[in-house]
């Protein structure tokens, strides 16, 4: 029984951890924090695995847990201060990256400038999560989501072009 649970957990982790990590990284701009959030998310997955009855895609279920975990992340002022530093962290990280990867760091910096809800949606879009699944995770209708995604894409592209020129 315990082995089955562990085996199921391994499969779920291996199939979803990278995308969840991207989501958390897009949210925090910090890989240590992203790993902490990833672990917290999967701790909740482990605790609730028995509740999952295939009513929805398991990935949607995990995304929802990850989103709520990210949202409750900044509980203390210390963490809040850290969040405000996100663009700065992203800036510092830029120096560590090679020239090629500067673009990635710049992209994360631009994502960190977006609103929380936009950050969540765009990381899912970039990871090519299907729209119905994103709508499910964010709790908004698919029609509204399409409009929102269009605006976020525009905003992100503008931000990217703006910072690239600097």
């Amino acid at each position: 029984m315990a082995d089955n649970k562990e085996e199921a957990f391994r499969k779920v982790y291996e199939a979803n951890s990278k995308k969840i990590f991207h989501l958390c990284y897009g949210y925090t701009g910090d890989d240590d924090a992203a790993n902490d959030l990833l672990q917290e998310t999967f701790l909740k997955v482990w605790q609730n695995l028995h509740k999952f009855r295939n009513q929805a895609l398991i990935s949607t279920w995990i995304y929802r847990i990850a989103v709520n975990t990210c949202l409750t992340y900044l509980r203390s002022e210390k963490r809040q201060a850290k969040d405000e530093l996100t663009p700065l962290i992203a800036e510092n990280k830029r120096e560590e990256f090679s020239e090629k990867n500067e673009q990635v760091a710049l992209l994360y910096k631009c994502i960190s400038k977006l609103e929380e809800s936009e950050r969540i949606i765009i990381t899912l879009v970039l990871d090519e999560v299907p729209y119905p699944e994103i709508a499910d995770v964010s709790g908004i209708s698919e029609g509204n989501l399409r409009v929102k995604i269009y605006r976020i894409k525009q905003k992100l592209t503008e931000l990217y072009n703006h910072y690239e020129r600097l």
Partner: protein
Amino acid sequence: MKDFDHLLMVWQGQPKLEPVAVEEVLKQVKKGMSSLTRNLFWSITGMLLALFGISMVMLFFVFHSWITYAGIAVILSTMVIYVLMMIRDYRLINKQDLTIDPSSYLQSLKEYQKSRATIYGWMYYLYVLLLSVGLTLYFFEVLQSASTQFKLAAYGLTAAWLLFCTFYLKGRIFASEQEKLNLMIDRLVRLQEQFN
């Protein structure tokens, strides 16, 4: 000028920032309890141990006056009610399904916050009042043969401890807990506004 497709390409071409290995996560998850429920869990455990101790006193110590038994009974019942309230809160947090959408999650957080405010509000004063009555009745026989100084010290220290808990500790614990809950609620409200 770069378009969104370029950003998509950058995203997909990003070096693999490897998340922690599954073994590491498994080790963590097997540790169990989340930080949110840990404090409450230990408070309940502490109260249950105290309840057990006091029950032992009632069962194995022989007192001559019914007043002493009445005192212990008042203390025990007060503590049982308090523990039951704590268990209810513990279940309320555990019931909070993080897999539900942010607005339902927000609702359960508000419900929990309201319940905690009641526990730290008038219920706490009632608890202290009943506990003081229970202790006074208990001390009535137990301290009968003690010296006046000892009696004064016992009553004084008990009163001081209850006053310290009521006017200093309770406020600090409540404020810190409410601050954490407010932060969580504020962020969820902000996000809900963004989605609407």
